[in-house]
């Protein structure tokens, strides 16, 4: 069964790269440009995985994760955080907010897919 991934990133370049990598691997892709938009999309659709950037205008990645976790419907949706920072503090913060895992940018399609497999059925 084809799985659906929601990607949230304010960079058009990153959205394009994610879409290409995920679509090639056989996923359906939904996209949003920031946390606020991401929440709007979630009102109408339930993805299997959320992949989100941290630094975004209007509502950043942490804000989005916290909001998603508060919503009963999405408590169990795996959320992967996309980040260029690889330091432990950011990862802890992401975890505390409720992130399931992370992917470091620049990402390799292989690692992205592997990370998704680790968190999605």
């Amino acid at each position, binding site marked *: 069964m084809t799985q659906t991934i929601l990607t949230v990133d304010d960079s058009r370049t990153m959205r394009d790269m994610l879409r*290409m990598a995920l*679509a090639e691997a056989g996923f359906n*892709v939904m996209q949003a440009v920031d946390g606020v938009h991401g929440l709007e999309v979630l009102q109408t659709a339930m993805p299997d995985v959320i992949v989100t950037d941290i630094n975004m205008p209007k509502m950043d990645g942490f804000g989005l994760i916290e909001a998603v976790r508060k919503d009963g419907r999405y408590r169990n949706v795996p959320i992967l955080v996309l980040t260029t920072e690889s330091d432990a503090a950011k990862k802890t913060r992401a975890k505390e907010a409720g992130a399931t895992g992370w992917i470091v940018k*620049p990402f390799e399609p292989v690692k992205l897919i592997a990370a998704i497999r680790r968190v999605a059925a």
Partner: protein
Amino acid sequence: MTVDTMAAIRQTFFQECEEQLSEMELGLLAMDEGSADSETVNAVFRAVHSIKGGAGAFKLTALVQFAHSFETALDHVRSGKLTPLPDVMKVMLRAADVLADLVEASRDGKEIDESSYAAIASEVKALTVIEGQAEEVEEVIDFQPTVIDFGLPEITIDIPATPSHDYRINFSPRPELYGNANETVLVLRELNRLGIMQATCDTSAVPQLDAVDPGGAYLAWSIDLNSEHEIADVREVFEFVEGEADLSIETDGQAEVSDADIAALLSQALSGAPAVEPEAQSQTIAEPATPQMQALPETTSVEPASTPAPAAEIAKAESKTAAVVPTQTTIRVEFDRVDRLINLVGELVINQAMLSQRVIEANFAGSSSVVIGLEELEQLTREIQESVMAIRAQPVKPLFQRMSRMVREVADATGKEVRLKTEGEATEVDKTVVERLAEPLTHMIRNAVDHGIEAPEVRLAAGKPAEGMVRMTAAHRSGRIVIEVSDDGAGIDRPKVRASAIKKGLIAADAQLSDNDIDNLLFLPGFSTAATVSSISGRGVGMDVVKRSIVALGGRISISSRPGLGSTFSMSLPLTLAVLDGMAVSVAGQTLVVPLTAIVETSKPKKGEIHSLGADGRVMSIRNTFVPVIDVGTQLGFRDVAMEPERGVAILVETGDGTRNALLVDSIQDQRQVVIKSLEANYGTVAGIAAATILGDGRVALILDVDALVSGLLNDPLAGELRYGTGG
């Protein structure tokens, strides 16, 4: 990803970089002025962060490293660790320029000379070191070659001599693990892909069903894994959950692969099944009815993604992508499409005018429904035209931003301190005009900084602040765009200008000129007062070139100056190059259009005002100056005998170089806006004619090129004497 899609995304990336650089510069300028809030700082950080992210994906190492350093410094500002004092901002602004250069070089694939920005780079790095904190560890950027994994089942055929490891893994999730939507079964499935796995679940901690706490964690696993992978890969599987579980991984050391193992592997490989039967796996994992444990997936075998040819796959990907397109406030359109639309609308306007004309000729009653309908059509057409013109209209902001950088560079190079203030960046003008404004504006800004603003010591001695100010404003005024560039420098050195002009033979030694006349001498060709032609302002590129460019755009430029206080250049330009405001005139039975920008005034010549000069030259006296009279009809070859001036109308025009002439025409029809049609497409250039237009009656009318028409006379030796002489 295929080469094509990567190329397309690369293009997107560089387009995005332009936008990010613009955002970044705006934000930095606001920070510099002290008018930035935390959101602005955040936006600047995000812009640099974004550029770094994309650059990493395209392996643009130099760009990534610089951006990373810059980003860290910005991070310190936004977290309050670094205060954006003026000298900090100075470094940041220079860093922004370097970043822009690096982006451009990366985009064009040019080599970047590290030494050219090494100074700025180290200054930025210095900003990243916060007192009392350990120095920021340079992020190790590890570029792996991109491998496309199509997800085929792993068919591992071991070669006997390859060592494999036995791992013993004990894994006990804590409740927090499930809180973040991690699933043990998924982790185990991934582990499974690394080799041969045997997992046993210890359910001893599971209480009676009625005592089960849905948020609790009661299961522990012990897993035996035989894999060729190194321990790092094994640990990576648990990467997300390590912090929320008790995890231990032991390795028993290398184990030789026995023949029996090889046989087993081979049979599995041949059947194409994953290393461990999914059913067997499900038996070893208990299925208590706890809410957080989802029902096991039907099969945990790896689903191979199909591998059609890349093209087909992209097509499939496109059709599968249920991309939710965010509502944007802007839309990207190819310029050609807009151009076509504008052309079509232009023809619509002409057609509508023709229709109106025919209706008038057909003598319909004024109130008839046809006439009324036509009036509505005219109104509608005009609105459509305005809307369409507005599509191509762009704010001058990007132009102003480029000037901002120019000011910094020239100031640096000439050792001056200059600040640029801009106003009216949102003022819009047709794209074609914006593009052609860049060069003249650049010259003017360079001149203002290089020649206008004095050196800091000189300014201080004059009681001015050491920092000079250049102001650039844009505004709409009576259907045109007015751009002013002013500086608070020393103003025009009039005696020097006058002396230089006399020396160059541009004016007579005893010529009496007003202050404004002297100022305007700057626009004469070949004029330059720079003692040494500085490399900044270029090899003697003077204001005459600027004036010519502005005039070529259908604009006018003037200058005003106050000694010691500064100079102001004022330009007025049409809003678009596709449409022209003109005066329709009759000449020898033909209709011609004279561009309004060239016209100073019109008058009906009276007998005493016309004088003869030479064989067949004529001049007209206008308020004590004499201007040459040009019989347009004979000039264009429409008539052989010059007309009598008193029977016609004189149109006083001013050409690019400031000279005035009187164009003699039969009569004036009216003032109107005309759509410019090219003559060159199907014919070629015609001396004295700029372009053509189509009148309401469907006929073609020619648009005069006033400069060319007048210069046809310049070979006439009489003309020169008249230019700067005084009236009688």
